[in-house]
């Protein structure tokens, strides 16, 4: 759906006709309907006769129900411009204080130090009330009520001192001003005579403290008539850059300074309330959007944080479970290690079969081992050795490993003393015995008459 950029609707309410203009997407929309006493119906007809957009209207009053005049208040006057205007209308049968609302616009002379220029307008109360009632019933937002003739100055822009002639259906309006500011206005029945026009322009020039104007800008004047004006006035007569048929309606539809406003106080209050409501609506909308966005972001953040918290809690639980599992595994490992050490300590540090084999195989051929006695007994450790061992107790010796010694007592018969010693040396040479002693060795005569050596050997092997 295309959104149209539309300005406000300027509505001119005159005695016999209603006119309207609005800028929509840069184009000017205009309409005109007859005014048949029923303002509401005529206004509704006016606004539906052309594609006007929106409900914001600025209403301008034209015709017999409005009076517009320019006055001059000399510098140093005893009365204010407002008082001068009121004094001017005092006793007026139509636009007196009782019947009409007065609005005054005051401007100092463009040259400075000169007289103040006053434009005052008066509109009949009845017409204002009539307009407001119709607008209210049609639910139009009345932005302002002003004199339509004065609004015509806003119809087009100009720079510097200017004089304009605006022709409407019933009147000719001569305006003069500087830049966007209207300083002089005179309304006369149309068509204005060239003499009167020249006189009015001269008066305007005099009030604006200028020698004269070079150009008269006209709106609503036919080209032939403009040519005649050029001849009669002796000055250039031009059209606005953008040709405008209804300068009053266009001026009302154009933003700018409203010189004289007749909007009733209650309507101004309603306008403020509407503005407040509008601003409140925007603020609430903006705040709502901000809160919604912040809330959404906040809930997303909360969601993210909850996920992170859950993850961390799960990690913590996993870590605790792993710690417990580690402790259990370490305890089990300790038990297994202890069992392994226990079992290792249980096994003898020697093989009796090997010892027996060494004892019997080391014996020379001419030797008879008559008896062998082997005892596996705990080792006798002296005090100094015990102290030395105590230092390394934790490192080298477990409670289950205790030093023991295998004591072998060998008795037999050998061919000679040398054979006994050789046998003892042989036992030492096996490396299995730490101590080998020949306890007894004596020469004996055997039954067959030959000599022999009877011996007893003690051998000790350290073990555990």
């Amino acid at each position, binding site marked *: 759906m295309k959104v149209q950029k539309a300005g406000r609707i300027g509505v001119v309410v005159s005695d016999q006709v209603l006119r309207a203009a609005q800028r929509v997407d840069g184009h000017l929309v205009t309409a005109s309907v007859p005014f048949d006493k029923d303002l509401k119906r005529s206004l509704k007809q006016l606004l539906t006769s052309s594609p006007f957009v929106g409900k914001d209207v600025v209403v301008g009053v034209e015709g017999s129900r409005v009076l517009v005049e320019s006055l001059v208040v000399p510098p140093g006057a005893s009365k204010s411009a407002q008082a001068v205007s009121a004094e001017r209308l005092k006793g007026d049968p139509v636009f007196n204080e009782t019947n009409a609302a007065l609005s005054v616009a005051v401007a100092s002379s463009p040259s400075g130090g000169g007289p103040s220029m006053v434009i005052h307008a008066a509109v009949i109360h009845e017409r204002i009330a009539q307009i407001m009632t119709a607008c209210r019933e049609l639910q139009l937002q009345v932005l302002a009520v002003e004199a339509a003739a004065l609004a015509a100055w806003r119809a087009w822009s100009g720079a510097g001192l200017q004089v304009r002639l605006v022709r409407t259906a019933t009147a000719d309006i001569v305006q003069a001003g500087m830049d966007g500011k209207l300083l002089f206005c005179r309304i006369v029945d149309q068509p204005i005579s060239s003499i009167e026009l020249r006189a009015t322009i001269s008066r305007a020039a005099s009030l604006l403290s200028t020698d004269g104007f070079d150009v008269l800008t006209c709106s609503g004047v036919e080209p032939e008539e403009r040519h005649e004006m050029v001849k009669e006035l002796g000055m250039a007569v031009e059209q606005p850059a953008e040709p405008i048929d209804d300068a009053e309606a266009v001026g009302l539809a154009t933003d700018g300074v409203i010189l004289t406003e007749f909007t009733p106080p209650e309507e101004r209050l309603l306008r403020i309330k509407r503005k407040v409501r509008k601003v409140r609506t925007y603020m609430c909308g903006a705040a709502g959007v901000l809160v919604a966005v912040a809330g959404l972001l906040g809930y997303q953040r909360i969601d993210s944080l909850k996920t992170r918290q859950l993850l961390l809690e799960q990690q913590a639980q996993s870590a605790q479970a792993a710690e417990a599992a580690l402790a259990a595994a370490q305890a089990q490992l300790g038990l297994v290690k202890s069992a392994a050490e226990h079992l290792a300590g249980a096994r003898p540090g020697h093989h009796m*079969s090997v010892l027996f084999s060494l004892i*019997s195989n080391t014996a020379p051929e001419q030797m008879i081992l008559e008896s062998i006695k082997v005892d596996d007994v705990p080792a006798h450790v002296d005090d100094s050795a015990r102290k030395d061992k105590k230092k390394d107790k934790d490192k080298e010796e477990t409670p*289950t490993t205790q030093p023991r010694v295998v004591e072998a007592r060998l008795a037999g018969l050998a061919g000679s003393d040398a054979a006994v010693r050789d046998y003892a040396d042989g036992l030492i040479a096996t490396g299995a015995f730490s101590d080998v002693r020949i306890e007894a060795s004596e020469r004996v005569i055997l039954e067959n008459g030959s000599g022999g050596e009877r011996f007893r050997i003690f051998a000790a092997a350290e073990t555990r």
Partner: protein
Amino acid sequence: MNLSTNIVVTAVLLLVLSGGLLFPIHSSITELETAIAGLEDSSVVVASPVPERLAEVNHDLEAMQASLDSRGFELCPDTPEARNEMESLLHTEMMEAGLTRISMDRQAGSGTGAFPSFNISLIVEGDAFELHAFLQGLESLKWVTRVLKLEIQPGDVERRIKMQIAVLLENEP
């Protein structure tokens, strides 16, 4: 009340309302952030090497268990059945070694080192080779034994041999 006052009042009301709506969210966020900071600071969560350590310990445990299993020997359970079985095994070993059994007595042992034990006194007859074979067989039994006494009496090839064998029993380490 003019336009500015109205706008200011509306703005303040909206601010209060927005604050009222958003404050619980802010509180929740703050609370969660505090809880998360606490969790992150806790020593439990901080990059613990527990899994790695657990894997190492389990590995060590398995290795230790495997080492234990591969030893092939253990302590004799302290039960009558096990003691009887031990006697049977000894008898079998004697027979296989070729020794002649004279007597076999079971005695309560006084313990060998830190281990409780029961003793078996054997009197057999045989030669050195048979004795050696018997000792080898004894050492290859699954239960740990210790020859406390070995006495070979004088004689010819066949000798009388007295042995006292301690059979080590299981006990709690």
